[in-house]
């Protein structure tokens, strides 16, 4: 099927890639751009591991075809840290043990960023609702909720 060449801005860098129509954004990020921080779990929109930000809003990169994103600006987990300096949300996950195996973590970090950008002081119920679409099989979620609450407190107090 006819491939097309598209331009994608990922974490501020513009990439030009040629894609077959059925190729998902998740696969293009991982395989064509070697940005393997975006994880692929279920590949049908259920697990949330592949969540990235498109114009700051969370989307499932396995439910988008890259061909649809010509001209789009994305943020992936690789775009959170500033060099060696972790993003405050990453810092909070590190401090509160908000991850174990780390598979779900990229999707949860970006989901948390979108939440805190919109609602800087979410309560526990709002945090739990926000990450309801991100499956984690290790932590039981308690430390993840704590990490996001900690990041929110640090952000609003600084």
């Amino acid at each position, binding site marked *: 099927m006819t491939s097309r060449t598209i331009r994608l801005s990922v974490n501020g860098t513009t990439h030009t890639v040629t894609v077959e129509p059925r190729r998902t954004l998740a696969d293009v990020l991982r395989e064509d751009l070697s940005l393997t921080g975006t994880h692929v779990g279920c590949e049908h929109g259920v697990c949330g591991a592949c969540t990235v930000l498109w114009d700051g809003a969370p*989307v499932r990169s396995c*439910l988008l075809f890259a061909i649809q994103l010509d001209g789009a600006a994305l943020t992936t987990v690789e775009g959170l840290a500033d060099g060696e300096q972790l993003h405050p949300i990453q810092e909070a996950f590190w401090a509160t043990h908000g991850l174990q195996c780390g598979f779900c973590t990229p999707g949860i970090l970006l989901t948390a960023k979108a939440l805190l950008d919109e609602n800087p002081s979410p309560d526990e119920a709002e945090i739990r609702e926000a990450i309801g679409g991100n499956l984690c099989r290790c932590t039981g979620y308690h430390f993840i909720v704590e990490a996001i609450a900690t990041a929110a407190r640090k952000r609003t107090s600084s």
Partner: protein
Amino acid sequence: MKPAPFAYHDPRTVDETLALLATHGDDAKVLAGGQSLVPMLALRLARPSVVIDVNRVAGLDGVRQNGTALSVGALVRQRALERWAAERVPLLTAALRHVGHAAIRTRGTVAGSIVHADPASELPALLMCLDGAVVARSRRGARTLAAAEFFQGPMTTALAADELVTETRWTLPPAHAGWGFHEMARRHGDFALVGVAAVIALQRGAVAEARVAVFGAAATPVRARDAERALVGRAATEAAIAEAAGLAVAGVETVADIHAPASYRASVARTLTARALTDAVARAKDAA
């Protein structure tokens, strides 16, 4: 899994889209938000040879309110309507918060969820509750299909293969009406086992208008007309609400699946109808 190969078109106008649908019809799928279609492609439950991506079609992203008439363009995202309705139609926002998760609603469209017609999803039921309709266009012309005739079965609608939904139309409750929305799901964001949307308007203590829609219980969302008739003209007492909740379930052929037997769904539907009506009455009293 990965989707099977398909030919991709991304038309810029409705006319171009209708021409593509006239040519490819049965072999084509319309891609809007893709939050239902892409999983079906990935699992190869759907395998169209042509995908018509309407995301760049101009003029389908407007929300327009004129009194109680609301028109929602086919490309309006669920998240956009959730925000638009927060102060204006809180019932819609309450229901939309149960549609998948924020990441799904960022991209998923209001019309797409309605056309997908999952009997356990919120928006088809809201369209039924708010006396809504779907505007469908093809090269043969345009037609407006009332929600009750649009939904024909699980994932089955009256839409023809060459038709494109361009907008959905809703009849909003009067400003003094109260609303209730309750849903039971295993986890937030899951498809509902059962859910209920209700609207009540009161006049001098009696029910002047009642609208009740139940979803997840049967093959399509259902409007509980018997329950509505039983309420109108009476005082909205606990006993009247209990009677209406019984009637809401009486006419419904509840379905059984791996998640719950039919009898359980009927029981939950009765309970949630009573709760939604109780909330709607309380809000209507507050508004009076």
